[in-house]
């Protein structure tokens, strides 16, 4: 389907950035710029879907690394052994699809909402897409770190310039938190690099070389701790989660979609791709801590979500809870649970992204997100309410919709390695329902509490949400193709049997 001679991964990563240049002549014509940017994002999406459609064919051809469908490896900064290595396996393909998809959602939801400095907004969005694609595809730690930082800066501006409320406070908080984590990670990467060079004399940042480094137990623990902290902040795990509710609440809708859909996933992805494979013993030692933080996160976030008054903040807290499930699945480090976590990363991106879109649409119309301002929307804006109910139900893990599959697999797998944790995590399922049903009840049902002039969804919004809903349903009813996709990489990561 896609010719093998093309450097597809490079195209995937840099196509959005190239599109930025295209936008420069259209600086004064925001509508044109929107169309161009959307076209490039759709092209990107088509590319990833094409890859997905042909992954079985690609898997038949052996690459230099087992499990990888595509690999691009060029020398870059040779003095430090930094190479430009991009690799695509089932897990990164899923993430890359999610990325391309989320950006399409983000731009469509901003279509009318972003009026000021629209082209700058698009440029940042596209730059961020490049950064995130790079994170999901890099197999060289230095390159990974570069992309890791690249994706932050556009988000910083996105919240700071187009946000609401205390946007400056929120964006600086977001930036400091993530920066703090990533600097520690950088130190750990360099240390690992140096240890490896010491042992073998080979100067490299390549993941697959570094995997073979032998480390003293306490060294491994320290290095892992640095990685873990960086990823935990992104995740976010309790107690380093407090940047998230602020950032989400004050971000523009597109920012929230990207934050929930992708930035949080870079944390879990990093842990799966780098953290666990590089430091298996340390990860094993810290598993109880990981479990504990994830469990606290689930219960804590659910209780706090229950008390929220702002819709967006409530959904932000629900994200913390959902990511807690992903964390548990990773901590179990067991095939079924890990598959569940990976699927759940995609599921959460789709569902929570859609919820943020819905709240954004409502905010555009009513200019408030206060739960107490609404009520009886089912009568006024039935389409909006239907989709809100739909995605809320997906979020609480209703069987047949996507989140259920992920949560179910996570718990089924965790049950095998640590039944107690799984049993406690079940409690989170009940709590999730309580706060989501409360939200739906207060917003969609009852009598209206403030007279608001609201219009229902316009065709663009309707199409967008309908497509996301269908995708959601497909992932819930027929997740088998996705599970097939990640089967081999998961097996290779964990090593050994089914």
């Amino acid at each position, binding site marked *: 389907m896609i010719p093998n001679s093309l450097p597809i991964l490079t195209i995937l990563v840099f196509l959005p950035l190239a599109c930025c240049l295209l936008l420069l002549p259209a600086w004064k014509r925001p509508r044109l710029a929107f169309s161009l940017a959307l076209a490039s994002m759709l092209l990107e999406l088509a590319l990833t879907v094409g890859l997905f459609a042909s992954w079985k064919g690609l898997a038949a051809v052996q690459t230099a690394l087992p499990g990888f469908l595509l690999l691009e490896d060029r020398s870059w900064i040779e003095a430090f052994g930094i190479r430009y290595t991009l690799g695509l396996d089932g897990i990164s393909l899923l993430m890359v699809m999610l990325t391309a998809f989320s950006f399409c959602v983000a731009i469509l939801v901003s279509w009318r909402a972003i009026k000021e400095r629209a082209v700058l907004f698009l440029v940042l969005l596209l730059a961020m897409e490049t950064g995130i694609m790079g994170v999901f595809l890099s197999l060289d730690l230095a390159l990974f770190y570069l992309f890791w930082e690249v994706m932050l800066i556009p988000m910083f501006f996105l919240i700071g310039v187009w946000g609401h409320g205390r946007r400056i406070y929120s964006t600086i*908080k977001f930036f400091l938190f993530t920066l703090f984590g990533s600097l520690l990670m*950088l130190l750990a990467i360099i240390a690992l690099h140096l240890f490896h060079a010491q042992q073998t004399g080979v100067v490299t940042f390549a993941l697959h070389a570094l995997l073979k480094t032998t480390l003293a137990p306490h060294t491994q623990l320290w290095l892992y701790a640095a990685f873990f902290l960086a990823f935990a902040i992104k995740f976010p795990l309790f107690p380093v989660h407090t940047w998230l509710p602020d950032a989400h609440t004050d971000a523009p809708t597109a920012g929230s979609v990207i934050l929930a859909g992708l930035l949080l996933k870079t944390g879990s992805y990093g842990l799966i791709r780098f953290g666990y494979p590089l430091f298996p013993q340390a990860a094993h030692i810290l598993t109880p801590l990981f479990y504990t933080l994830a469990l606290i996160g689930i219960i804590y976030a659910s209780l706090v979500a229950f008390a929220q008054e702002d819709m967006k903040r409530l959904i932000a807290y629900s994200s913390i809870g959902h990511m807690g499930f992903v964390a548990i699945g990773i901590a179990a480090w067991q095939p079924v649970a890990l598959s569940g976590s990976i699927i759940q990363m995609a599921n959460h991106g789709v569902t929570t992204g859609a919820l943020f879109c819905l709240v954004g649409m409502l905010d555009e119309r009513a200019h408030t997100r206060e739960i107490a301002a609404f009520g009886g929307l089912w009568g006024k804006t039935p389409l909006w309410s239907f989709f809100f109910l739909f995605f809320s139900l997906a979020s609480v893990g209703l069987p047949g919709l996507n989140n259920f599959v992920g949560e*179910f697999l996570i718990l089924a797998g965790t049950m095998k390695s640590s*039944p107690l944790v799984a049993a406690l995590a079940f409690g989170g399922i009940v709590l999730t329902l309580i706060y989501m049903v409360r939200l739906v009840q207060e917003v969609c049902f009852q009598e209206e509490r403030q007279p608001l002039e609201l219009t229902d969804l316009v065709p663009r919004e309707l199409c967008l949400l309908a497509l996301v809903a269908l995708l959601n349903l497909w992932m819930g009813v027929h997740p088998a193709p996705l599970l097939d996709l990640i089967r081999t990489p998961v097996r290779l990561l964990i090593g050994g049997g089914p």
Partner: protein
Amino acid sequence: MFDNVWLIPLFPLLGFLINGLLGKKIKNETVIGGIGAFAVLCSFAVSCMTILKLLSLPGEERLANVKVFTWMTCGNFNADIAFLIDPLSCVMIMIVTGVGFLIHIYSIGYMHGEEGFYRFFAYLNLFMFSMLLLVLGNNLLLMFVGWEGVGLCSYLLIGYYFHKKSAGDAGKKAFVMNRVGDFGFLLGAFTLYWFMGHNFNVWTIQFTELGKNAHLLPTGGVVTVITLCFFLGATGKSAQIPLYTWLPDAMEGPTPVSALIHAATMVTAGVYMIGRMNFLFIRSPETLMVIAVIGACTALFAATIGTAQNDIKRVLAYSTVSQLGYMFLAMGSGAFAAGIFHLMTHAFFKACLFLGSGAVIHSMHHALHHVHSHDDAQDMRNMGGLKSKMPLTFLTFLLATIAIAGIPGFSGFFSKDEILWQAFANPHHGQLNYLLWGMGAVAAGLTAFYMFRLVFMTFFGECRITPKAKDHLHESPMVIVIPLIVLAGLSVVGGYIGIPKLLGDLFGGIPNYFEHYLEPVFRLSEEYMAEHAAHGVAHHSVALEWGLMGTSVVIALIGIGIAFALYVVNTSIPAKFTATFPALHRAVYNKWYIDELYDYVFVNPCKALGRFLWKGFDVVVVDGVVNGVAKVVMSFGGIIRYMQSGFVYDYSWSMAFGVVVILGYYLFK
């Protein structure tokens, strides 16, 4: 053989999609209602063919797993979309589609002119779809899909009048309490899956596979934990102590919903689930005892509350809770067939009662509406004397009432008597049996009392609404009355397929067809129980059985007699009684204050904790510490100056620059 069984849930799903997506455009009520009802009729037809096919097979072969497609498979975990056909699931699909179809027909008349007519039928069909998945699913996961699906539909339909806050709250309560139960269900399912796999290398969630390997399981211990988890799920769905309080509130929904979901089908899912996993439950005598005790307690407790309610639907709601208690009493006594039998007869007479009450409310509502009265159309104190105004409704209602009261010859008698006898004679609970029987018998008396109280207050005596409004009372249209007649007929004759052996012998050895029919499902369990019975199989004399049967009938008659005395002969006594024992009446009338207790113990602390964690902990402690650390760090670096100058751009660029510098430093050092 059963290749087309997937059609059974498919038709309602199609009906849901058509009405859900296009209903708003169709507008025509007859078409919308027709689509909804026709979809269920098609399912009913396929169900009939399925059960006929099943009956044509010899007893041992009445079992089939029909796979449709693989849902998810991951490692050694595998879940299919597949259906299980056996006598138990067949009897359930017959009840669900049969009673469901009648209620769909009824709804066309009852919901006439309601805003969102299409929405109602879409939800109703979605419910049918979920319920059929629940009963047909051949594995725990698919059953859980239906289990949650019916909970969702119940939530949506209770909150159908979404402008009413009380309706929304009731829906929310139902959903959340069900979720608590679901937590138990899932936990039980996972533990079972893990335990079987871990110890015996049987990684499966399929019922037939689990059943085949059940002999590996120990008695008690882990099995008790698993079965108690499942039973928690059942208490949520089937409204048993301690999770019953949502069901009376659920009466906020339209009456056909109460009949279909909250009487005939969904609430019996817990009973069905225990029946489906009988091989598991018999391996834990402790759990069986818990089930029997909870069932008996619920039967009695709910019946006491039923005696003092004035809202016609609430009386029926508590009656449903109480009757479900009987079913659990049967299950806990190991009399699975008796429990399922009562499930079926109850579906007939309770659906008839609810639909009848709906007809009364409908008529009352119109009459009161005509005279612009704001009196409560559901309050029995406003009714009275309706039998001359609505003769057909009265007649059908009366027949169903006689059936539920347990008068010999009517369906409720056969099933309830079988349960009481099994509760007395089962070999599991020793001396406790006498108590269980006693509670059941007293509850039967109370049932007869409150049901006839309802009939007398509603249909007899003087009409208590204004004479003007009275003239507007009238019998319902045929579309409403015909389902009532069919259901009343079934309430009368439905019991004759399960005549107890005692009576069957009397009339020349008529066998208990129903028990015989279900035998393939429960035979292994019954054999197991006979072997492992804790107290040995006691042999009771025929005379004793006759005596007990007579006693329960006499108790029922006494209940009817008291109701007659208090609500027909001397109607001033209830008021006097209330005046004499005000505290008792208040307690019963207010449902023993259980709702208030739950609010006080669970709901309010949870709310307070949430607020505290957010305002007091998240913002102050966690955020404060982290921000404090950041501030200290920043003030050392002098960065704070930038932050306070407000130049975000400068600041952020300097941060980005810093990253590059640090990166560069390490790279080029």
